[in-house]
């Protein structure tokens, strides 16, 4: 129900995502400085750090909302530094947003259908789809995967907050994603919803890698295999979850001597 | 400016050369070959000075327009109607009292009061609904235009230039040399120079107010980030009312100015609104220096166009606007 990518370009044994020396200035403020990181295909990475560390700016750079002030970004071996967002998405990159970015005036089904349509040919077709349209089936499959089947025909503006967050995930899993950026997917969720989220994330097909930004350490450390810590726009430490958790510097700076719960 | 020079060395060189040529054309006596090619120097100088003074008028109107947008995100398409209303009000007061300056003052105050009413009664309830606000300003302009047509009719009015601004003044620009070696200097209407001076003074005062006073800094902070403005504890609505009132009053004042060296009639509101639109598109929305640059460019383009390419004057202004939209949509004065 989450399609495997077909025919998307990969150069050699390239990393899924590679950043070299990436920086981003806003006027005199250095939001990102000299970011260098690599993520292998299928790897699950967490990017952690306090507010203002530059995590969301990093995501914005990777998706192409703005070009970096310096450095190179490679996606599956291809240099995408100057690509427009839609060009990166069509190569298999996906993203969720911290504040749900949904189409409030359309139904849940239409939202997911658009997501499936966006990466397929004929995305601007003037012809209405027939009842046997494959993308509708794909959309319905995705909706089932995130447990939103009963609200399929409701306007997104009418959904509860937790349901909107689930829809946000569904949009990111549409088409044939190769790599997903999850921006604080657990924000504002109840404990049951959080558990649900962890299930969804851990049961993703192995070939889909992702980076997750999260404040909730419980969720983050349970779904990732490696962690990158950021501070003041720079990478501060990288390592396995258990290493990071027990690192005294990290505890001092970020955890305040223990887990932070929201 | 030095940043601009270092980032765009080629463009800077072009600009410097153009400035040098321009300065020569203004101050030197033209050789006969030049006059044969492009016409007399007086025509050129008149177009140049008229363009600058017209640009001054446009600056007065457009700066209020861009300030209101910059802070309140309100594209006030009734700005032209406020201009015309100010003109009519000023005409009334000036001709009744015999004092031109009273007309200016009355126009500013009355239109500013109208601005306060509009902001408090109408726009305040539409915070954040930019499109709806803009449509409402269109409705207001339709209503105001018809009310003014009803009250003042279709005649055109001209406000009499006050005696202390009347008459020509000699400027230090040489037109030609007489055979006896005496230089013929350019004579130019004082009132137009007065408008230029007034625009510069008001522009400088606005710059000082925005950069050196607390209210000004709050306004600038609000232009950059509205949420931050309310977070600083300032009474946001009061600032909005003050800015809208000032912008409106400025438009009214400009109406008196325009009514003095141009005329007041139905349709002037639309013309000045359209000019303001082009000015802020070219200069960049929300930027006062942008309004100044844009106003200068549009004023000069209009005057030079009407003198040297009369059938296609409009095209020149339009081409400039299209060029800016195509190459640098955010306007000339704004960063990316």
């Amino acid at each position, binding site marked *: 129900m989450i399609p495997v990518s077909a025919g998307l370009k990969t150069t050699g044994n390239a990393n899924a995502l590679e950043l070299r020396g990436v920086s981003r200035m806003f006027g005199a403020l250095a939001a990102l400085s000299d970011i260098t990181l690599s993520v292998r295909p299928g790897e699950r990475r967490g990017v952690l750090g306090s507010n203002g560390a530059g995590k969301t700016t990093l995501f914005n750079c990777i998706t192409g909302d703005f070009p970096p002030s310096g450095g190179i970004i490679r996606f599956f071996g291809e240099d995408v530094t100057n690509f427009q967002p*839609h060009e990166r*998405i*069509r190569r298999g990159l996906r993203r969720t*947003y911290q504040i749900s*970015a*949904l*189409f409030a*005036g*359309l139904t849940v*089904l*239409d939202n997911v259908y*658009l*997501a499936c349509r*966006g*990466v397929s040919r004929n995305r*601007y*077709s*003037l012809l*209405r789809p027939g009842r046997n349209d494959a993308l*509708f089936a794909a959309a319905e499959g995705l909706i089932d995967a995130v447990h939103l089947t009963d609200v399929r*025909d409701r306007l997104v503006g009418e959904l509860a907050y937790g349901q909107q967050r689930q829809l946000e995930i569904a*949009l990111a899993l*549409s088409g044939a994603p190769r790599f997903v950026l999850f921006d604080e997917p657990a924000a504002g969720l109840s404990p049951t919803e959080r558990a649900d989220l962890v299930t969804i994330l851990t049961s993703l097909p192995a070939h889909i890698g992702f980076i997750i930004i999260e404040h909730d350490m419980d969720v983050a450390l349970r779904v990732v295999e490696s962690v990158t810590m950021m501070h003041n726009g720079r990478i501060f430490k990288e390592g396995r979850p258990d290493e990071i958790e027990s690192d005294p510097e990290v505890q001092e700076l970020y955890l305040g001597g223990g887990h932070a719960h929201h | 400016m030095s940043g601009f020079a270092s980032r765009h060395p080629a463009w800077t060189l072009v600009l410097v050369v153009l400035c040098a040529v321009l300065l020569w054309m203004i101050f030197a006596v033209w050789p006969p070959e030049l006059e044969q090619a492009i016409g007399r120097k007086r025509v050129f100088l008149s177009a140049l000075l008229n363009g600058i003074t017209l640009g001054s008028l446009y600056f007065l109107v457009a700066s209020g327009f861009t300030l209101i947008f910059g802070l309140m995100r309100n*594209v006030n*398409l009734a700005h032209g109607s406020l201009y015309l209303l100010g003109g009519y009000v000023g005409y009334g007061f000036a001709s009744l009292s015999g004092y031109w300056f009273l007309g200016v003052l009355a126009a500013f105050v009355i239109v500013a009061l109208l601005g306060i009413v509009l902001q408090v009664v*109408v726009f305040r309830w539409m915070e954040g*609904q*930019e*499109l*709806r606000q*803009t*449509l*409402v300003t*269109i*409705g*207001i*302009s*339709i*209503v105001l*235009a*018809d*009310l003014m047509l*009803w009250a003042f009719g279709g005649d055109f009015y001209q406000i009499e230039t006050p005696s202390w601004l009347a008459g020509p003044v000699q400027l230090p620009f040489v037109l030609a040399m007489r055979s006896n070696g005496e230089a013929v200097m350019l004579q130019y209407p004082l009132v137009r120079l007065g408008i230029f001076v007034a625009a510069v003074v008001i522009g400088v005062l606005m710059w000082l107010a925005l950069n050196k006073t607390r209210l000004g800094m709050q306004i600038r902070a609000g232009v950059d980030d509205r949420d931050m403005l309310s977070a600083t504890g300032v009474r946001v609505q009061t600032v909005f009312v003050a800015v809208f009132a000032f912008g409106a009053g400025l438009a009214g004042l400009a109406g008196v100015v325009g009514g003095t060296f141009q005329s007041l009639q139905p349709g002037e509101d*639309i013309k000045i609104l*359209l000019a303001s*639109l*082009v000015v802020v*598109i070219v200069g960049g*929305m929300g930027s006062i220096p942008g309004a100044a640059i844009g106003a200068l460019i549009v004023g000069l383009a209009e005057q030079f166009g009407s003198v040297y390419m009369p*059938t296609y*004057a*409009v*095209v020149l*202004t*339009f081409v400039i*606007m*299209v060029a800016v*939209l195509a190459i640098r*949509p*955010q306007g000339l004065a704004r960063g990316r």
Partner: protein
Amino acid sequence: MAVVESNSAATSAFPRDGNGFGWLQAIHPAGWALIVFLLFLPAFGSNFVLVQIFGWSFILGMIALSLMFLAGYGGMVSLVQMTVAGCAGYMVAILGDSAITQISLKWPWWAAVPIAVLIATIFGTVSGALSVRTEGIYTIMITLAIASAFYYFTLQNYTIFNGFSGFNGISPPHFLGVDWRDPTAFYYLSLFSAALSFVVVLYVSRSPFGLALQGTRDNARRMAALGFNVTAHRIAAYCFASVIAAFAGVLLVWYQGQISPGTAGVGPVVDILVIAVVGGLSRPIGPFVGALVYVLLRTFSIDALQAVGLDGKRFQLVIGLGFLIVLLFSPDGLIGIWQRIRPRLLGPRNAEGGTP
């Protein structure tokens, strides 16, 4: 935006169950009554009603529909649609036959009309291209500036556009054995054009193209993050809308028999906006409702105003006040008011279902 809302029944792309004619069943009984009324109007309506009321309403409605498509589905309020119509009208006059024989090329209608529509569509598309790269709120300003530039250009250019006087002596052609100047024939021509554009807009709104356009209205950034080239898509939307406005412009110049700069001046340009907003920007029937109200007001306002003791010339004041009242109290226009009172009038059962 409070001015633009949407309705799931109208916008969902998901095909209805049943056979291919399910859409026929979806037409509300009131819709059928309207269709019958319009089809048989020439049997009992005078020529004046046919052409000056309904014909003109259909034409203005088409232009306002083109604005509604961009604003309601795309979130782009474009004031250049009337100008596109004016451009098409001018091209018909210049390429075809008119009383200004030194300019008109006298091409036959089947050559002049398609070229006129093409030129006007290109003009509309380029205008769109200029305005889509800036934030949405600037679209009104930029399109207004383009519209006024066109006005001043046609006013001052005499070699092509014949300046202030414009063109007159234009009439609908004679083809398929019918003289389309005949009131009944022209009525059906404009009715057919309006109905066709209405159906096409309704259909396209539920196609992937239209659905994606609504996506860019609701969240352009998200659309880009789903793989859509938002800029190209918006420009394509302008192209589509301009085709409708261009055809309306051809009908307009045939209806008026003449065209001048004032046809697409700032007044008419703003009037189209008023029509679209007052009618309602969320459903394609809105612009036609708004156009009919406008035409009725325009035709009968002199008498109506004098009946309440006002000068008959205060039509613009009425328009402006009506516009403001709608904006302040019912941002979704007359259609919004209808949607609110329909449950009360017809009972809750009949309030469901999609009347376009």
